[in-house]
């Protein structure tokens, strides 16, 4: 059995988890939520095994490296990070909707990775630029940050919906606002760490820690937007609609940092 097959099972598992979370909301049953949680955890365990399997497999091919080195691998790790972050915050910010959101985002990303024709899932050897000890810490901190921002994006969209349309099934706006803030503050720290590890790596690879390469610049743009978010909230007391909008703009910057730079702009960071 190879890891890409396992990943396609995981894709289905996350879809199922999102569906069961949705059922638990519609019927308002806590026991159903338990089942959704079990399915999600099973998905994460399966996905973790797939990642480890791929890692081992790369060594068997004689080109051993952590499976964090191309677009496919980054998508798989991105979805892993979302579920991982969700399971961590779940206890403190319990709401089935977050389960639906996280599992659905994770499903979408994996579905794109497995089904889209332009994502190559083969294990490739590492080009010289990627042969660095900074690879693992840089990728992990960046993607955990992306995952936090993804969840914050979800909660801020819900917050906007709650304020504008006032549906009953959504939790209170201040609660959603609080979760958005918490996710962004953790994501901000992780993004800072991702930029720092990237700078340390760039210093060894190119002799400069910062060179205004499009990827570097877009990570700074993202950092500035979320930095503005935190200042607006902590020092100016912004809440609700305004904060949700900043969070959504920040997430657009995240997506552009992750994908846009590679597909739209030219730069040194062409391997994602």
């Amino acid at each position, binding site marked *: 059995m190879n890891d890409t097959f396992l990943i396609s099972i995981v894709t289905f598992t996350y879809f199922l988890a999102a569906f069961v979370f949705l059922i638990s909301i519609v019927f308002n049953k806590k026991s159903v939520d338990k089942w959704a949680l079990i399915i999600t955890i099973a998905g994460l365990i399966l996905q973790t095994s797939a990642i480890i399997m791929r890692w081992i497999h790369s060594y068997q091919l004689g080109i051993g490296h952590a499976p964090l080195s191309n677009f496919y691998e980054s998508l798989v790790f991105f979805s892993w990070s979302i579920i991982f972050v969700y399971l961590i915050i779940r206890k403190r910010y319990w709401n089935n909707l977050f389960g639906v959101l996280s599992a659905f985002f994770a499903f979408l990303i994996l579905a794109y990775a497995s089904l889209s024709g332009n994502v190559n899932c083969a294990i*490739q050897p590492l080009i*010289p630029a990627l042969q660095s000890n900074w690879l693992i810490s840089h990728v992990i901190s960046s993607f955990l940050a992306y995952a936090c921002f993804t969840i914050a994006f979800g909660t801020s969209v819900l917050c906007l919906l709650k304020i504008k349309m006032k549906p009953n099934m959504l939790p209170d706006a201040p609660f959603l606002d609080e979760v958005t803030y918490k996710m962004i503050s953790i994501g901000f720290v992780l993004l800072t760490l991702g930029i720092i590890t990237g700078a340390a790596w760039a210093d060894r690879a190119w002799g400069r820690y910062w060179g205004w390469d499009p990827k570097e610049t877009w990570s700074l*743009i993202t950092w*500035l937007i979320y930095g503005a978010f935190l200042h607006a909230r902590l020092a100016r007391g912004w809440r609700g609609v305004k904060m949700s909008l900043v969070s959504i703009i920040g997430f657009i910057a995240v997506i552009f940092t992750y994908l846009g730079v590679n597909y739209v702009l030219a730069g040194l960071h062409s391997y994602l």
Partner: protein
Amino acid sequence: MIKKLHKLFSSVKLTIFLFLFLAVTSIMGTIIQQGLPMERYKSLYSPSVFSALKFFNIFDMYHSWWFTTLLTLLSINIIVCTFKQVPRIIRLISPEKKEIDDTVFKSSQIRKTFQSQKKLSDIERHAEIIIKSLVGTPVKTVKNDTIYFLAERGRYSRLGMIFVHISILLILAGGLIGTILGFHGQMNIVEGEKSDTVTLFGGEGAKKLDFDVRCDDFTVEFYETGMPKEYKTDLTIMNDGKKVDSGTIRVNHPFIYKGLKFCQATYGIAGVSDFKVVTKNNGTGDETVLKLNMMKKVSLPGSNASFAIARFVTDHGGMGPAVLGVLLEPGKAQHDIFWIFQNGHNINQQQKSGFTFTLDSFSRLYYTGIQVSKDPGVPLVWIGFCLIMMGFILSLFFTHKRIWMKISGSQDKYEISIAASVSKNRKTFEEKLEGLTGKITVE
């Protein structure tokens, strides 16, 4: 005027504005490629657009006067705001006065007062348990028959934000030092040759080093798939023709000499040399290997003709590397000119004047592309990076918690007052406190 300026720079509104303005303007430099030669831009834009873009220095916008101004404004903003916070932070982190001030029970964020009919020893025991589980081991003081407990934890987490803001200033200062005193450029050195000139990036001319860098050897390895696996350059630092230092650089493994960092960046083929062409005398069957270099005539053994090569191409008509041979025979007015290919196909063998020519081998001469940089601002930036993470950890994982408790009154009717303040997660703290105080009141 000064008051107005102070007000402007001490406002967080300015910070938010600068953050978002920097973010929006930074997008430009990712769309318009930076640091190309001016001629390229001239051909890309109409004259009026070109001069407008040039006025705002968009072609190197991150070092332009206006971008630098924005960063300076941000720095002033951070300095003023941080200084404004210093007295408050010092007050918060300086050790608590031992004297208890009853006003905390009226002014704190979290306040609670209730009565208990339990025994004093029980109340005290419970009070200690509550404080211990919420904050930490309490200190007990008795004053005028009133018992006070107080505890404090995580005082230094208040420093977190100051650390973060100072670190941003350090990073910006490091960047400024690097821009003024440092340089970054590239030198291409052919194997076996040396150079002391670095071509600076951004069209800033060249920089002469006070020593020579010699490329002793360059090697490139490939995976079976054809992807590059490793580039490696052996370098020697020479001073007045004498060897001073040497090292090997690979991608991600730079070599450092006198504060200068040498990084493996690119490579290319500088030329080819040491050609070997096999000539076979079709009459006798004798084979001779001719060692040739470009445009150097040699005599053809077993005849009175001479032979030279005039050109090399890496791929001639899809049949691989080829050299252009020139055969000169005495008495013939015209030279014979023909392509000579490597072994493998009959077509590759060129029969001329009773000889068959085959290209045997040649050696490639590489040049290595090394990025050379010097940045005295780097240590400051690293300190800034460490400090910013320390600051985040302090303010994210630690909470400044303080609690005061007062037990007054007499037997059978004690009054208990609790005051507390926390730097974050107030709601959780209040819920916990609520749950714990039940122990004292409930019989």
